[in-house]
Structure formats: structure tokens, C-alpha cells
């Protein structure tokens, strides 16, 4: 059989270049010397240098920003998984009275845009500005409805008999959740975890308003400051940009299949 080249790859490859080139540009500029960029802004670097990274790390205070982001993202992901998992479990397996009404309520609130101004001023009144909880609470609350639906849809496929037998064996409700539901629904929890990680790492709408002091900022928000401060030094900005996105790129490369299948099933919109 003769191997025939499908013409459809040509437009697809062009779009691939359109997608990848801007990211490649960021990477290339990060390795150029400052002087080279003005002569060779979009090309391959002639001399590779690593000093941009160490400089950007120091001047952009990336150590602090990374720490903040890790704390915020970590707590948010754990809370979303546990609390949404609990709620989905309660709705699916415990024949909770009023669960139908509750699902309707969640569905309605899901279609509403974030009430940014009320949240912002509630947090001023409650002294939550410049605190980790100031962003974690709205992140978790905002992600609650959607993820409950996602996890519930998955849990509906788990046979109830399994829980009955666990109950007969004397397991408590919480024990059943951690020992039976969590392992069985693991694929769904992984999807929830990676998309929550991605969205809280990249979030700027709330974090930019709530985390105002430099010591509290997440990397995505700190990068905004960084670029306005070192406006003229492209190499430095590029290195900072690479450091801002690298954890998510690694996560994406490790779990590409999960991301794509998660998008197909969940319809997660950023």
C-alpha cells in the first residue's frame, strides 16, 4: 500500500504553527541577551544565556510569588475536591431530602456571572483583602456548583450495592467516602483537580484586586507588575514569563490526555 499524504495536514500544520509560534517566541527571547533582542526580536537566539532566569527570579520576587501561588492553589484544589466530593456523595448516595431543589438552585447560580464588586467589598468589610482566604473562599465557592455536577454525574454510575455492603461491614459514611467512592471515582476527581489547579494558577480577575501587596501576589498577578517595571528589558520579561507558565506547561505535558478528555466531557470554559 502506498502511503498517501493527506492534504488536510497542510492547513492543520499552519494552525499548529500559529498556536506554537508565540509560545516558542517567549522561550527563545528568554535565552537571548538583552542587546540581541533589538536586532533579532523574533528569531532563534545566537548566543544562549541563562542569566535572564536568575535575574528575573530575584528581581521579580518569584520565590515569594511561587510560595503564595502554591499555597493558594494547593488549598483550593484540596477543598474543591473534598467539599464538592462530599456534596456529590451526599446528593447521590444518601437520599438526602430536598436534593432535587438543591440541584436546581446550583444550576441557576451556575449560569450567573461572578459578582465581583460585592465580593470585593464584602472582603474589605471582613478584612480579607491581602489574605490567602480572600481568594481561596471565592475560588472554592465559585467552583462548587460546576464540580458538584461533574462529580455527581460520575458517581451516578457507581452501583449502590457496593455502599450497602460497606455499611453492613460497619463502615461509617465518611469511611465509605474515602475507602470506596474516592478510589472508584478517581478519574473524575483527577479531572476536577487538574482544571482547578489550572484555573486558580491562572486567575487574575479576583486575585489582582484582592492581593494588593507584593508579598501576597500570585505569579500570574506578580508578572503583571514585573512587566510594567522592567518594560524595556524584553529578555528579563521573557524569562519571567517562562517561569510563570512552566508549572502549568509541565502539568499539561504530563496529563495531555486527561486535559483533552476532560474538556470533551466537562465542557469546562475558561
Amino acid at each position, binding site marked *: 500500500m502506498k502511503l498517501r499524504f493527506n492534504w*488536510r495536514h497542510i492547513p492543520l500544520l499552519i494552525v499548529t504553527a500559529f498556536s506554537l509560534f508565540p509560545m516558542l517566541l517567549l522561550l527563545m527571547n528568554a535565552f537571548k541577551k538583552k542587546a540581541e533582542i533589538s536586532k533579532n526580536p523574533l528569531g532563534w537566539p545566537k548566543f544562549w544565556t541563562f542569566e535572564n532566569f536568575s535575574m528575573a527570579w530575584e528581581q521579580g520576587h518569584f520565590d515569594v510569588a511561587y510560595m503564595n501561588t502554591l499555597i493558594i492553589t494547593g488549598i483550593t484544589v484540596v477543598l474543591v475536591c473534598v467539599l464538592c466530593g462530599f456534596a456529590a456523595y451526599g446528593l447521590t448516595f444518601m437520599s438526602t431530602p430536598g436534593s432535587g431543589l438543591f440541584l436546581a438552585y446550583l444550576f441557576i447560580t451556575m449560569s450567573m456571572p461572578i459578582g465581583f464588586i460585592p465580593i470585593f467589598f464584602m472582603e474589605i468589610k471582613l478584612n480579607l483583602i491581602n489574605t490567602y482566604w480572600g481568594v481561596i473562599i471565592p475560588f472554592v465557592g465559585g467552583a462548587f456548583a460546576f464540580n458538584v455536577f461533574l462529580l455527581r454525574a460520575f458517581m451516578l454510575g457507581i452501583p449502590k450495592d457496593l455502599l450497602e455492603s460497606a455499611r453492613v461491614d460497619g463502615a461509617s459514611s465518611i469511611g465509605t467516602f474515602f475507602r470506596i467512592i474516592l478510589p472508584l471515582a478517581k478519574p473524575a476527581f483527577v479531572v476536577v483537580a487538574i482544571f482547578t489547579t489550572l484555573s486558580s494558577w491562572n486567575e487574575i480577575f479576583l486575585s489582582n484586586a484582592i492581593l494588593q501587596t507584593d508579598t501576597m501576589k500570585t505569579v500570574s498577578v506578580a508578572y503583571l507588575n514585573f512587566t510594567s517595571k522592567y518594560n524595556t528589558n*524584553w529578555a528579563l520579561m521573557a524569562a519571567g514569563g517562562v517561569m510563570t507558565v512552566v508549572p502549568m506547561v509541565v502539568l*499539561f505535558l504530563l496529563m495531555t490526555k486527561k486535559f483533552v478528555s476532560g474538556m470533551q466531557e466537562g465542557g469546562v470554559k475558561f
Partner: protein
Amino acid sequence: MIKRSRLVRWKGWLFILPGLLFHIFAVTIPAMLSLYLPFTEWNGISMPKFIGIENFVEAFQDRIVGVAFLNNVKWMLFWVTIPIIFAFGLAYLLSKIKRGQTAYQSIFFSTSIITVTVAGQIWFWLYNPFSGVNFYLDKAGLGFLEWPGLTIPSFALVSVLIADMWRGFGGNVIWLLAALTQNDKSIEEAAKLDGAGRFRILWNIVLPQIRPTLVVVTLLTALGAFGAFEMVYVMTGGGPAHATETLSTYYYSLSTRGQRAGYGSAIALFQMFIAFILIAVYAYLKKKKGWDV
């Protein structure tokens, strides 16, 4: 016995409650406040003072609100046409190839994982009048093609839109391809045997089958377009001279920098109202027209 089992059933709420408390704080209370705050004058520090509909009167006379609203409309018209047709074209091409579907999908989606602050910066470089793409156009003697990008108001919005499309089209490709692969291939084959042309098959057989997905994707895109914020805020901050201002960026800066929370919420409520209309249109199409979406 009965009493005990009822108690056991109510225990379900213990599992729902912790998450619900977060949800009430972050969604329910803000939603109720956003119905009240628009009728108040509030600097964000003292207590809100009720002033009736003054904010709305002011908003209707505010030139910037008009510009921002028009930008949102343009943003929506752009997003529901070009990127969706583009994404559909790509999904259609992908559905016809045998190898590399997942690879293409993940590459197209990979732009969405780039933090918007960094994505905006990259496009800032590309649009830079002195280095960036224009640098090479100049060198090649094609200076007349120069793209002024973000500096000139009339080009700024389109420039931001292109950057936003670069970041966001991948998700649509994945959804539309998922819908296309579920299509019944036998109908297509039958039509081909009957001698139907490529475009006829596309229009009469492929598109009707994926209409539910297409409608949902369009609705979500339109809703997203009315909330457009991130890319604008990062790339231009609404400038130059409010040329790229959207409703979101305007109320954002009004409330965080301008200390006019009451007035800002009036604009936010207006935005919610439009989202409500879009959802109502969708619900109407779904119910009355019997669109199986």
C-alpha cells in the same frame, strides 16, 4: 425506628453544608447584593447610601458605557462568527484524518493553559511597532502592510481580539470534534452514494447533526464575550482613550481604583441583564422551537 432513619437521611446535609457555605459566601450573597448595590452611592468604605435610580440615569448618559457596550457587542459578533467557523473548519478537517487527532487537539488547546498575563505580553511583542512582526515587514520592504496594533484606537480592539482568539479557540475545536465523531457516518455515506456534493453533505447532513453542540458552544462563547475582561485588561487596560474598554474592565477600574462601587455595580447589573437575555433566547429556542439542545 422511623425517627432514626429520618435522622440518617438528614445526615446527607452534613456532607453538603461545608461546600454550600463557601458557595453562599461567594455566589449567593454577592448575587443578592448585586441587585441592591446598583441603587446606592458607595465609596467602598462607608455604608452604602440608597439613592434610587440615579446610577442608571448616569450610566445611560455616560459616553464610556456606550463605547464599552459597543465593544462588547463587537467582541461577541467577532467571537460567534470567525473563531467558531475557524474552530469548526479545524474540527471538520480533524474528523477526516486518521492519525494525530489527539496531537493536534492538544496543541490547539495548549494555548489556553498559558497565563493570560504572559499571553498578553507575548502579543504585545508581536504587535510592537519597532520590533515584532512589523520589524520584518519593514525589512522586506513591505512597510505599507504594517500593523499599528495597540497604539491606534481603531486597530486596538481587533488586535486584542486576535490575541484572545489565539488563546481561546482550542476548546471549541475539542467540543466540535467530539460532536462530529458522534455523528452517524452511514447517512453521510448514503448521501455520497446518491451523488451529493461535499458542501451539500456538510450543510444538510453534518451541520444539523451537531447543531445542539454548536448552539451550546455559541451561547457559551457569546456569554463569555459579554464578560470579556482578562485579555483587554492585560494588553491595553481599556485604552488607548477607552477604545478597547469593555463593560467588565470599566466597572473593574471604577470599583477598584475609582472608588465608585455603587455606580460600577449598576454597570455590572446591566451586563448581567444582557447575559440573562441571551440565556432566555436560548431557553426559548430549546423549548418553543423544539431544538433538541
